[in-house]
């Protein structure tokens, strides 16, 4: 059985950064990812990443913006530590070769982005995430870290005095293997495939959240799901960076009248404004023609290309229909500043983790910075933990059990008599979540969602698969991913039900006010007697 000090699950920016840091801290490290790193969802981040580098900027300003957007739920100390480390991460990236745009003096160019009160987003045209992903992967390769790609984790055990272990389906070989480690870092990304449309790639299905939850870890602020305000809603949904807005684009109605005057808003508020405008006037459009002459192709080359490819619209000729769509999980596996979860030996970083930095709302441009800082810290902390930790042999029975479970999913009869399929159930779930647990929720929509989810779970249990091979069996992997999503749907809805107020990304139409006396707290979901239990935790000042 492969055995490492630190095992990282997930090949996006956070996972790669964590692996590099753990390696540099002297640990033996390996990384498992279900897709190649350059195909991960980190590449969706377009607009930029923040650090207080401008001469008119300061740590205090940056922290103030984070805390304001977090709408009363930010753990301020975490925000301070985070803000103080942002600069070093960007300088590291610059040294390692990220081709950041430069100003006329050859220094890092900074742009206005979202609700940042200063120009503080470094960027690589409008494909910042992909460029950073490339460079962090390059440095991951430079560190010569063993990597297992096209490897799908099917189950995880941790805690209860055992070292963490995962069963891994190597898609190429079609074999199930057991991987153990002294410490494990989950960097499995978000879960916004739970909604449709969304900005998520196919694999953004909250796998890590589900394993952590089942292993007994606490999840925090799961009701906080950030919707991106400017998404073309056709097909799977296409994100158009907010940098377009700060660059001069306007949100207009059918006749070209401005619908939203104040564009420098937290995403949560802007998304809600676009949502309301859509309810009122039907079509909401983003007009990119209002960018200064020549700026469209120069500053948003990828946006132009993708809008043409996905929406079949030439943004230099006509405005693009937009609607808010699920973009990023704000809540996630509860961790401290070093990525430590409530289960010993289990760490989390990046989008799947939640350390209280973002509270109820996330500042645009913080996702990549957060992936890097939380990845590095989790890598270092996991390496340190592994050094002092005595390794225990994981239970081999886990492998045999898992093999049996996967086999039992395959239908015995050849004829398809089933009307439910993975894709149909997934579509139904995503539409339900968008309708009932989306930008606006209330007690009845949430209750009816919970009832519907429980019926979907039953129907899910009856689905039988028809592919007995394990080699690149995406019928199986997408089925397992849907299992994660159904689990998360329940957790998100339960947390949303508990929070009887509106704050940040969470808008309860039956409780439209922020209620500080009762709800200046994080929600915590954990598994008690096999079912989700929602509790709360105080916000650290």
């Amino acid at each position, binding site marked *: 059985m492969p055995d490492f000090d630190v095992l990282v699950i997930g090949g996006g920016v956070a996972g790669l950064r964590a692996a590099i840091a753990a390696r540099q801290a002297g640990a033996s490290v390996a990384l498992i990812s279900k*897709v*190649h790193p*350059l*195909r*991960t*969802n980190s*590449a*969706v981040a377009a607009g930029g990443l923040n650090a207080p580098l401008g001469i008119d900027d300061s740590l205090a300003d940056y922290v103030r913006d984070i805390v304001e957007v977090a709408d009363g739920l930010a753990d301020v100390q975490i925000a301070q530590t985070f803000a103080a480390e942002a600069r070093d991460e960007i*300088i590291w990236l*610059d*040294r*390692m*070769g990220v*081709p*950041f*745009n*430069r*100003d*006329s*003096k*050859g*220094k*890092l*160019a900074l742009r206005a982005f979202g609700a940042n009160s200063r120009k503080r987003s470094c960027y*690589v*045209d409008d*494909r910042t995430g*992909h*460029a950073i992903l490339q*460079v962090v992967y*390059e*440095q991951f*390769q*430079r560190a010569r870290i063993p990597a297992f790609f096209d490897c799908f984790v099917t189950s995880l055990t941790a805690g209860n005095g055992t070292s963490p272990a995962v069963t891994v389906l190597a898609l190429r070989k079609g074999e199930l293997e057991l991987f153990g480690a002294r410490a494990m870092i989950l960097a499995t990304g978000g879960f916004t495939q739970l909604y449709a449309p969304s900005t998520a*790639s*196919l*694999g953004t299905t909250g796998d890590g959240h589900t394993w952590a939850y089942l292993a007994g870890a606490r999840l925090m602020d799961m009701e906080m799901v950030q919707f991106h305000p400017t998404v073309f809603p*056709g*097909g*799977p949904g*296409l994100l158009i960076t907010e940098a377009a807005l700060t660059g001069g684009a306007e949100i207009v109605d059918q006749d070209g009248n401005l619908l939203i005057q104040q564009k420098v808003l937290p995403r949560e508020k802007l998304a809600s404004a676009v949502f309301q405008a859509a309810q009122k006037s039907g079509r909401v459009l983003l007009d990119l023609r209002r960018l200064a002459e020549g700026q469209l192709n120069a500053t948003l080359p*990828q946006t132009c*290309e*993708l809008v043409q*490819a*996905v929406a079949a619209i030439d943004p230099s000729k006509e405005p693009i229909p937009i609607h808010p769509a699920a973009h990023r999980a704000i809540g996630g596996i509860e961790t401290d500043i070093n990525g430590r979860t409530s289960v010993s030996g289990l760490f989390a970083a990046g989008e799947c983790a939640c350390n209280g930095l973002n509270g109820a709302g996330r500042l645009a441009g913080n996702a990549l910075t957060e992936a890097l800082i939380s990845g590095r810290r989790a890598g270092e902390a996991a390496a340190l933990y592994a050094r002092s930790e005595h390794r225990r042999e994981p239970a081999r029975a886990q492998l045999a059990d898992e093999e049996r479970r996967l086999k039992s999913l395959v239908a015995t009869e050849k004829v398809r008599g089933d009307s439910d*399929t*993975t*894709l*149909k159930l997934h579509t139904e779930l995503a539409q339900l979540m968008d309708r009932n647990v989306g930008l606006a929720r209330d007690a009845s929509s949430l209750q009816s969602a919970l009832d519907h989810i429980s019926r979907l779970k039953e129907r899910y249990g009856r689905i039988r*698969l*028809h*592919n007995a*091979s394990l*080699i*690149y*069996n*995406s*019928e199986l992997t*997408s089925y397992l991913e849907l299992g994660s999503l159904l689990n998360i749907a329940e957790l998100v809805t339960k947390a949303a039900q508990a929070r009887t107020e509106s704050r940040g990304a969470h808008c309860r139409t039956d409780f439209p006010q922020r209620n500080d006396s009762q709800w200046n707290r994080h929600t915590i979901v954990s598994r008690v007697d096999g079912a989700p239990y929602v509790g709360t935790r105080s916000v650290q000042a």
Partner: protein
Amino acid sequence: MEVTFKVYRKEPGTQTQPGRSDYKIELGKDATVLDGLLKIRDELDGTLAFRASCMRGYCGDCTIRANGKSCFACTTRVSSLTQKSPEITVDPVRNMPVIKDLVSDWDTFLWNKIDRIHPWLEPPGTAANGETIIPDSVMADIRKAMSCYYCGLCDEGCTVLPVDFGFMGPAALTKAYRFVFDPRDTATRERFKYIEESKGLWDCVHCFEASEHCPRGIAPTERIMALRDKAFELGIQNPRAARHHYSFADSIKKSGVLDEGKLAVESEGLTNIRGLVRLLPTAARALRRGKAPIPYIHHKSPGAPQIRRIIEKAEEKHR
């Protein structure tokens, strides 16, 4: 609309010949090829294997051929393929070994080739206190090179790879460009050791197919040419490539037209008996197919004197 997908099938680890499965499905008018594949897997055949990730045309994972033309499954609309017939063929990309059905072996095809160039930047030894000061024009060029989605279409178009799969290929060489021309990298000479190895930099035949095939306009062939110029600038020369370049230039300068026979002989080197012997079968084939006129006389272009003056002017400028 009702469409029939005729999909390439290959079962790994068996001796059975690859075949094709037909699937008749109902799709919406805006459906993409990926929508079709997902629906087939979900409703008709769970054994169909394919790759996909971002679903919006920026990750390069779902590169396939639809009706013979390479494309991204996620952004290619089915309606654009069914104008003539309600049947579409779906195949893996050319040049790429296949593991199962539409799942190509990216390791062999792309990632391992990229690994050969040591694809990471070697930063300066001492850590800088702040950012590196670099003009944006230099960064813009690197940004363009790095706008690569690793979709493999340049390697698919490459005319060397079908003949010699060991060739590094345009994608890996474009990746090398990204380091060689980045002022922050300190390993230029070392990097050239990796890319100059046999089946590397000098094996490109500059047919420009890579540039034609790149969906992002990165122009891999031009970047390979730039790497060769850089190699010459650093005094790194491959004798055969150098002879090829000199003979090429000399021929144009003297006659205004490329003397292909002379180019072949001079590229091998007049004293390189083994190399010259290797040319004989090609020469024989050319003779047999009437592609080498006898007697072999190289005619000057009527504009030869003007062409000569242009070249001399250019030489003057670069002296």
